[in-house]
């Protein structure tokens, strides 16, 4: 049901793009740092609307698909690029340099995807501790020796390295969220700096499942049984991150009867997803004997990994002050 509403919304926006024909085509750069490429694919997920957009913009950098000449970007005058879309976390020196260069050359920088917004999946390396394994400086391949970039001391979201203007969270963001950014740029109606292209409410606020509360005795993994698609997943013992996660994805996972993994990051007013989620868990867990409570908590499959799946690098405990070149 939700999914349908979200598609309709999308077509309206697409209609808007068709009507715009700006005098000068804005210059757009797309860059991928420590990510999986899924965010880039989300652009392609726009389907035909993608062509509508590319007709209206001038792509100056997009290593995955079009232009990958970094030297050309470096030679540009400052603020030549109108909009830069940066996806992926900052994991090595090369990416950090590129982020700083792109900040100089661009008027607007948008962090796209959970890795650029919060550190994302690569940020989970923080669960491993540091310095266990020495990172390699080079690898030997059939073609010769390939030098590897020097890793940063910690994995950082884009805002940990440079100032960021807008955020489009999601793993990956839905094509409609990306489309909205393009449309507001082309129409000259960009929201104030710091805006997030998603809702401020929590996913639960938009969820229609029935809630019971104070009843969970044991937690499950999604494959362990068949779950009722009318009742709140959390009440059925699945770690659904809905109570602390920002809405705006169209409840994609929950409508497919899968628990929300929290990819849109914390909703407005929530500082730390883990801290906030612990309050939620305490309120839905069955009380009783101490041993029962301990058993219930032990049945949670990886609490740290679930609550901080996308936001470990920006959590209270692991967040680092702005990284610099040295």
């Amino acid at each position, binding site marked *: 049901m939700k999914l349908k509403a979200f598609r309709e919304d999308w077509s309206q926006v697409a209609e808007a793009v068709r009507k715009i024909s700006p005098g000068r085509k804005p210059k757009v750069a797309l860059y991928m740092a420590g990510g999986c490429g899924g965010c880039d694919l989300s652009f392609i997920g726009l389907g035909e609307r993608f062509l509508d957009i590319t007709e209206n913009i001038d792509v100056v950098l997009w290593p995955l698909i079009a232009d990958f000449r970094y030297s050309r970007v470096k030679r540009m005058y400052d603020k030549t690029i109108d909009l830069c879309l940066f996806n992926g976390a900052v994991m090595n020196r090369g990416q950090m340099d590129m982020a700083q260069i792109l900040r100089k050359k661009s008027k607007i920088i948008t962090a796209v995807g959970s890795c650029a917004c919060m550190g994302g999946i690569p940020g989970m390396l923080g*669960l491993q*501790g*540091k*310095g*266990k394994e020495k990172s390699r400086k080079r690898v030997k391949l059939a073609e010769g020796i390939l030098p590897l970039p020097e890793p940063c001391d910690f994995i950082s979201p884009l805002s940990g390295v440079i100032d960021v203007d807008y955020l489009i969270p999601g793993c990956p963001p839905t094509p409609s969220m990306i489309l909205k950014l393009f449309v507001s740029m082309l129409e000259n109606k960009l929201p104030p700096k710091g805006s997030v292209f998603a809702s401020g409410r929590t996913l639960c606020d938009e969820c229609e499942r029935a809630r019971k509360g104070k009843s969970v005795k044991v937690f499950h993994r999604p494959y362990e049984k068949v779950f009722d698609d009318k009742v709140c997943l959390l009440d059925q013992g699945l770690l659904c991150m809905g109570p602390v996660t920002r809405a705006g994805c169209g409840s994609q996972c929950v409508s497919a009867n899968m628990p929300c993994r929290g990819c849109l990051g914390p909703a407005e007013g929530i*500082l*730390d997803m*883990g*801290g*906030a989620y*612990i*309050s939620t*868990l*305490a*309120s839905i*867990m069955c*009380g*009783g004997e*101490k041993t029962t*409570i*301990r058993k219930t*908590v*032990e049945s*949670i499959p*990886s*609490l*740290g*990994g679930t*609550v*901080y799946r996308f936001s470990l690098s920006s*959590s*209270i*405990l*692991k*967040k680092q002050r702005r990284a610099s070149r040295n």
Partner: protein
Amino acid sequence: MEEYEPKIIVFACKSCLPKNVGLEEIPLVREGCVNHLNPKLLLSELKKGADGILMLCSPPGECHSAEEDGEAFKRFVLLQRLLSDLRISRERLRFECLKESESFGFMKLVKEMTSKLKSLGPLRWENEA
């Protein structure tokens, strides 16, 4: 070399804190019922440099906000689990029920915890197990 003095933060409400203990003897206290403890505060204290945290509550049935009995323990167990998933020793977090008047018990707890933390050493983020 100067001996390492661990920093302990106590979370407890006014009614569980012993009245006759001088403030200078208590490491540092954040007042407020632990049944309503916002885990965010506890995580922030660890980030700000606490080495260990003591959560104090009245014994079951004696809490002045009676209907909340047991909430504190759930939060404690969940937080302990979260910390251990983040490779921080569970022993840095301790939960005890204390009767109002037991100032002796309170000081004993603090001493115990201090020696435990001394053996663990200062909280470092990497590679604690």
